[in-house]
């Protein structure tokens, strides 16, 4: 598996950067050239398009709107952005993208985010609180449940906050490692599930024995105490904890140069 710790372009470390920038760069580093990647709008789209501009020019980007092998020059504003169709190898219908492309397990990496993730990597984008009397009603499933089920591996990118990193999600929208080891197989889920959760503080990976998310990498300047404070369960720390190399100037300049369609600001 590719590491997130080492720069993928350039060697000179940048002077200063934001935690979000470190998160996007770490996520981009996790992708290999030539992989087929099922991407959602937002942080995943930013990271995948950054990787394509850095070390993975042949990354195959697939959006659930049916755009296959799309190469947008700017970041799409939404899943329906015309730039995704104009720059795609081909556009297929929404039923086809799910049935012929995602479901059979052709996609290497599914890139997800969420409102809540729990210690076993299960993701909630549906409700905070009870389903029938929610404290917060979230958008819902979208394509996430089948991305989580069918991609060969899943990478989660989300900001590390205590309200988001919970012991158990209020609602299982997308299955991570379910109730633990062997559960994905029992459920008939053919992909490996979340192999890495990349946050603005570091990287968590499932323990091979328990599938519980363990802190394996810290971003530069971040402390284990910060991670503990922002994690809703007593998070384990890997013995061989790695420190992420800071963004290289090449990585950071490329990220900052990316524009979103119709806007002046970077995404």
């Amino acid at each position: 598996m590719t590491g997130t710790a080492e720069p993928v372009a350039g060697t000179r470390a940048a002077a200063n950067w934001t935690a979000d920038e470190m998160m996007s760069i770490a996520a981009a580093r996790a992708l290999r050239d030539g992989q087929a990647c099922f991407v959602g709008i937002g942080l995943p789209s930013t990271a995948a398009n950054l990787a394509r501009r850095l070390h993975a020019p042949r990354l195959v980007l697939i959006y659930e709107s049916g755009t296959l092998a799309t190469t947008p020059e700017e970041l799409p504003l939404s899943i329906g952005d015309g730039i995704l169709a104009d720059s795609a190898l081909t556009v297929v219908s929404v039923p086809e993208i799910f049935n012929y492309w995602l479901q059979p397990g052709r996609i290497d990496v599914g890139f997800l985010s969420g409102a809540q993730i729990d210690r076993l990597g299960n993701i909630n984008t549906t409700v905070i609180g009870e389903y029938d009397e929610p404290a917060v009603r979230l958008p819902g499933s979208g394509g996430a449940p089948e991305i989580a089920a069918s991609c060969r591996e899943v990478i989660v990118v989300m900001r590390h906050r205590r309200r988001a990193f919970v012991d158990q999600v209020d609602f299982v929208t997308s299955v991570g490692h379910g109730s633990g080891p062997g559960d994905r197989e029992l459920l008939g889920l053919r992909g490996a599930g979340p192999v890495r959760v990349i946050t603005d503080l570091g990287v968590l990976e499932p323990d091979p024995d328990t599938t519980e998310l363990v802190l394996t990498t810290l971003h530069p300047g971040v402390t284990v105490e910060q991670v503990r404070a922002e994690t809703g369960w007593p998070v384990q720390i890997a013995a061989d904890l790695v420190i992420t190399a800071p963004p290289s100037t090449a990585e950071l300049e490329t990220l900052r140069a990316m524009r979103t369609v119709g806007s002046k600001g970077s995404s």
Partner: protein
Amino acid sequence: MPDRVPGEVPSIAGPGRAHYRSGVAKIVPLPQAVTELVHDGDTVALEGFTHLIPFAAGHEIIRQRRRGLTLVRMTPDLIYDQMIGAGCASRLVFSWGGNPGVGSLHRMRDALATGWPAPLEIEEHSHAGMANRYVAGASGLPFAVLRGYSGTDLPNHTDTISSVVCPFTGERLAAVAALNPDVTIVHAQRADRDGNVQLWGITGVQKEAVLAARRSLATVEEVVDELTPVPGAVVLPGWVLDAVATAPGGAAPSYAHGYYDRDNSAYRAWDAISRDREAFTRWLRTIEEAAA
């Protein structure tokens, strides 16, 4: 009927027959199409996957004060937030209910939380589930099979999710009930004078949604003499549509590939308008007062 348009235009073939109907789609004014095809209590699908969202048709439904609708859409988007806020809906069938790239749908949230302006039931699926429900509906099958929902909490809340066993392998798979809306409405770039409709760019689930429906309407940017073939275009023959109505800009503020881009400022502005019932009510008045 105050909302009936006095029309010389001959009336469209009656309800319930479109699904088994041949002939040509009638090209009629949008108000007449909505009057004749959309009835209180109908199950209505306005489709268009973030692209080509039929806003003009949705606003006409608001103007004609349809009530008790079951609104079906993978991504409710602003249009259903508006129709819910206007009181058209009693039920929402969907798979992702956000303001794309902006945030939440506050009218939907308000209706769910407080029942304002009317109580709203929901039937929630994943995108793959919704897409396959339309496929089953378009195929004349009562259900579709997919790898989905396993291990998620959705099947506990949605009774149109079940399972079947493969008669060859014994494997258990998810099953979803077919969707057959009373009426489906889509927006397309153009139609010819026989009512054949052509749409391109991100084509989404529009073909399935139209073919699954008992009645259907396409609004179009323009009617042309000939539909020059376009790479990647989907063509819906006039004989599977009941009506075509010209509605230039009918997908705004969403995209119409080749005609206009999304007006993102409108999507951002909606966040503030929809958060506040007063602001929304003022917005609603502007829609009700606007002519189609």
